[in-house]
């Protein structure tokens, strides 16, 4: 039944926003951000359950927890960058939006570098060493 709460909060926030946008447009933006945070907190319990399952799987497979954290960070940065670039595009600043996406891609590459190195190490260990006998 949590979906009803989420939809309820969304509708109430929308009604408030419509009223507030005419009276105090500067507060409307802050209210929409607050509504976004509240909705995020609603689903936070579900997200943490998913993360718990992933952590259990990582433990069973004996994968370092650091890699899982990095993957989750990458997902988070991708969402933030998508949201940010969409706002820039709405404001007619597609150039800034492109730069936001590029910055996010670079950040993801930097974060993914340790995983890439670990993968390369694994591949190198699989390859036979030394020349032909």
């Amino acid at each position, binding site marked *: 039944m949590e979906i009803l709460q989420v939809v309820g909060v969304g509708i109430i926030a929308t009604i408030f926003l419509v009223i507030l946008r005419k009276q105090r447009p500067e507060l409307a*933006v*802050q209210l929409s*951000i607050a509504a976004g945070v509240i909705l995020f907190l609603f689903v936070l319990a579900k997200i943490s359950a998913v993360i718990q399952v992933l952590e259990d799987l990582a433990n069973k497979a004996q994968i370092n927890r650091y890699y899982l*954290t990095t993957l989750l*960070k990458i997902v988070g940065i991708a969402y933030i*960058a998508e949201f*940010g670039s969409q706002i820039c595009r709405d*404001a007619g*600043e597609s150039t800034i939006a492109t730069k936001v996406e590029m910055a996010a891609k670079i950040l993801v590459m930097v974060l993914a570098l340790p995983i890439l190195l670990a993968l390369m190490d694994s591949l190198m260990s699989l390859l036979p060493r030394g020349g032909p006998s």
Partner: protein
Amino acid sequence: MGKLVGAALIVGAFSAGGFMTARDLRRRKQILASLQSALAMLATEIAFRATRLPEALAQVSETAGSPVKALFAEAGRRLREAEGQAASEIWLLAVEEWLHTTPLKGSDGEELARLALGLGAAPREDQLHRIEEVKNRLTCLESEAWETENRMGKVWSYGGVLFGAAVVLAIW
């Protein structure tokens, strides 16, 4: 717990920065509108009441809204206490000092500085013409400020929060 507090502080700081920049964009258009009203009032004082400039500036400062009030009050005070300094010079100094306390841009200050040409010295018609000219330029700047605020206000507000969240994620 310490990590969470740190994260909240980082997001809070970036959000506050974004909101303050958005607020400055909003305040700029309000100040430009307020300046136009004040100049219209100054023109009335000079044209119909034939008030001396220091008194005219003081009159305007009494009815103008903040922070425009401070500019006219300061210019009026300096004019009353002036000893051999030209009114134009005093106006320029007052504008220069006042501009730092507002979110107005340099171009806005340049338009206000134009008012100094012949202020208190030129014939009344010339002064009125100059005030009208500056008022028209401020109208153009105000419409540009509205357009900028409409485009960038939301970007700065959301941008601060999102950038803070991105920084937290990157260093977590």
